[in-house]
């Protein structure tokens, strides 16, 4: 069975993904003292800033090379160089991501070449490390942009010096709260780690008396450089092709063994993560985590009967869709529709393996949009949707309640604070899912049963 690619349509109706450069901004926001410039027209940077600011509720400063008509005809290199000059003066960063756009790529801009010349020419003054990432908007979804940036970051910044016993931990596009939870688990397991990218504090920064244009936090440059010499890499990125896998890059280039895992959502994935940490560190799982695990099991049992009534549609970035699907299967919720806007990667294969034994056949949709998702939801008894706020029409038009998770969350507050991984995060998510099913049940079970069974009811119910 292949993944559904039933878009006989050419038109994309209500998109389930964003473009590459947006995804590529995020990892740079998770590097200490880093800035990003988008080589394209002014609108790209502004739109992406708006999209992200509304989700994270944080200032998102992203520079633009502001290519105009002239730049489009004669080349935009001068714009990019001026842009670098100005942003370095304004922000004084240590690392600068240079992201291209569909415009820059189409007019043949060489951001790698420009970056290298710029770095050499200005070598005498403290120039930040430049990391060019070709991210044409037509080249893939934001999920691919995210991983592409990570590959460029490790490829540009890592350098081999001396072996150390640290462990690289590479995370996909998850919330700052999720990143904090991974850090907490690593610390509880006494792991010496480098987490990349670390948006825990930068995209969910605490209020401080003095505002910093580049918020404190993020993975330090030196730590990234040393990732080449780490003992192992743990990457939560099973769905990405090898060329978009920073862990694969570190393994093939520097021989750092890669452990690719699903995101630790659900009992199995959390256990796998903890088991690996135990193996790598030889440290026991501390009591606090054992208790959290026990509570998750308890929660699963408490809710299992309600959950069996769930028929879910899941959509979002491949890594998240895979992790959530695993959670559903573990808990007896039917993973009825599993969709992503991304077109590439291992997700279809992974989902087929995962759902092979399910009673209800899962519909797996790659390269999909919300017109597809909605069409497949209609009349299929789907009573739960899990994904970003872009799924709001499923509620508005089909009456399917939406558990908000992933990116973007634009119609509710606190997208940056949603915690859904680790044993504790899983409990929170699972309770939310179960309670969404229960809320629906409580809102109409009296009426449903009356309608169905009360023998003397009038033919058409008033109210």
């Amino acid at each position, binding site marked *: 069975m292949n993944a559904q690619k039933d878009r006989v349509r050419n038109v994309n109706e209500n998109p389930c993904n964003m473009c590459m450069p947006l995804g590529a901004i995020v990892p740079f926001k998770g590097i200490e003292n880093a800035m990003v410039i988008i080589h*394209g027209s002014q*609108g*790209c940077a*502004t739109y992406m800033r708006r999209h992200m600011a*509304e989700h994270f*509720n944080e200032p998102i400063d992203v520079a633009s090379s502001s290519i105009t008509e002239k730049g*489009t005809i004669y080349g935009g290199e001068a714009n990019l160089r001026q842009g670098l000059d100005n942003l370095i003066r304004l922000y004084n960063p240590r690392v600068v991501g240079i992201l291209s756009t569909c415009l820059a790529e189409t007019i043949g801009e060489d951001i790698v070449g420009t970056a290298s010349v710029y770095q050499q020419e200005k070598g005498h003054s403290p120039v930040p490390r430049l990391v060019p990432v070709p991210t044409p908007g037509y080249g893939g979804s934001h999920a691919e942009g995210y991983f592409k940036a990570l590959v460029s970051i490790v490829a540009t910044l890592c350098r081999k010096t001396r072996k150390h016993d640290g462990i690289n931990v590479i995370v996909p596009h998850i919330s700052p709260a999720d990143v904090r939870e991974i850090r907490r688990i690593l610390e509880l397991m006494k792991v010496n780690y480098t987490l990349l990218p670390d948006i825990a504090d930068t995209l969910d920064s605490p209020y401080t008396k003095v505002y910093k244009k580049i918020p404190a936090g993020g993975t330090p440059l030196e730590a990234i450089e040393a990732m080449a010499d780490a003992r192992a890499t743990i990457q939560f990125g099973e769905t990405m092709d090898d060329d978009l896998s920073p862990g694969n890059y570190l393994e093939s280039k520097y021989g750092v063994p890669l452990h690719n895992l699903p995101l630790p959502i659900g009992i199995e994935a959390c256990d796998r993560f903890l088991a690996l940490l135990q193996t790598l560190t030889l440290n026991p799982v501390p009591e606090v985590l054992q208790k959290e695990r026990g509570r998750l099991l308890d929660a699963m049992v408490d809710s299992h009967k309600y959950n069996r009534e769930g028929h879910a549609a899941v959509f979002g970035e491949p890594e998240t869709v895979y992790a959530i699907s695993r959670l559903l299967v573990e808990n007896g919720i039917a993973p009825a529709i599993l969709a992503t806007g991304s077109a590439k990667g291992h997700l279809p294969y992974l989902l087929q393996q995962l759902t092979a034994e399910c009673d209800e056949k899962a519909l797996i949709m790659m390269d999909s949009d919300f017109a597809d998702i909605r069409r497949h939801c209609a009349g299929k008894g789907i009573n739960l949707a899990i994904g970003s706020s872009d799924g709001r029409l499923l509620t508005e038009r089909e009456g399917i309640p939406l558990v908000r998770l992933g990116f973007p969350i634009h119609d509710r507050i606190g997208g940056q604070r949603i915690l859904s991984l680790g044993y504790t995060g899983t409990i929170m998510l699972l309770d939310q899912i179960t309670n969404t099913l229960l809320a629906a049940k409580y809102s109409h079970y009296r009426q449903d049963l009356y309608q169905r069974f009360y023998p003397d009811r009038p033919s058409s119910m008033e109210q």
Partner: protein
Amino acid sequence: MAMNQPDNFDIQERQKSIRTKGRQSQPINCQADSIAGCVSQRACVYCGARVVLNPVTDAVHLVHGPIGCASYTWDIRGSLSSGSDLFRYSFSTDLREEDIIFGGERKLTRCIDELAERYHPQVMLVYSTCIVGVIGDDLEAICRKASLQHGIKVIPVQSSGFSGNKSDGYRVACEVLLRMIATPEDVPRQAHHLNYLGDFNLAGEAWIIRGYLQEMGIHVNVAFTGDSSYETLRTAPTASLNIIQCAGSMGYMAKRMQEIYGIPFLNISFLGLEDTVESLRRISAFFGDPLIASRTEALIQREMAIYGPTIQNYRRRLQGKKAAIFVGGGFKAISLIKQFRELGMEVVMVGTQTGQPEEYDTIHQLVSDGTVVLDDANPSELERFMLEQGADLLVGGVKERPLAFKLGRAFIDHNHERKHPLSGFTGAANFAREVEETVCSPVWKYLDK
């Protein structure tokens, strides 16, 4: 309050676009291209065109380009509709690598065909994005052919992002609207009918104004473009007056409609009590009908009796607070300065993304000495002047909101996403309430400023 990084501001080219009233007398530099790397808050041509056209409710809005441009503009605005909601759907040709290599024309044609068949719209607007301008798809020809084939209006919107700034996008949108309303023969002029330009019916604002005018005995043919449809837009040429709220986006439209249809126009503003009262009286005076005049006065008297005291109540709590403004267009900044005055507040910083020279002149006249006026500001400048000028509150859009909050300042959402109306008498009261709710919230006292 001192800046923590005083050298932050060291971008020479930006100095011409920043003026402190009473200290610098040269006119402000505006309408220039944004400077690379300065983190401008402006968007692009496509953005300008999309903002203006998107509220046409029954049109298919098809974005020709890679997916991003459609994703970032899908149903993000608060325009309300009394009819179709097709405008809330995002349609994109979702161009991929192969389309860039071989051209996007065939895919575009297929997309238009699909949409025409599925939705049967009377009008389809096809927006070009950056790369369409580069790969050379002939939008005009494709749209012409599709119009004939499907018997509907398929109109290209030449909005390649790089081909100017947001203001250029407004002009592109106006050209498209002119095409939509074009009539082959002379149309009869209807007395007491007007068009309302530059209101996008955010949170029902155009409905509020339509209600006032109706009460005065004046019919609104159509608002450009809030809650408009192909049919209602087509009635525009029969109006005897155009009134313009958002001059930045619709000033050009009004001038062109005067040239083509001989329809005169008035710049008005329904933001704040003062401007609302004055605008209603000017509209009434234009028609010179005593019945309209007496109804107008009755309306003003009634509404002022309700909302005047409300505003006064808020004024007592807000007197002396300082406001900073950074909004899209000049007209809005001007109205806001007056609105803050109604609330007893002083404006200490005012800037716009795309204000015009004459609007900056007006701003300069309205503000007091020491007020910083700036065009196309960036976050560094907003931060610096909010702190230096001691602003208690910022008015702005989504991107500016988190910055204000991080600086511990109150914030007013004066953007297209808002969910409550800020126009007319009721809107002025909403505005005052929003200012009070944010400035006087208990949360600020816990921040260590």
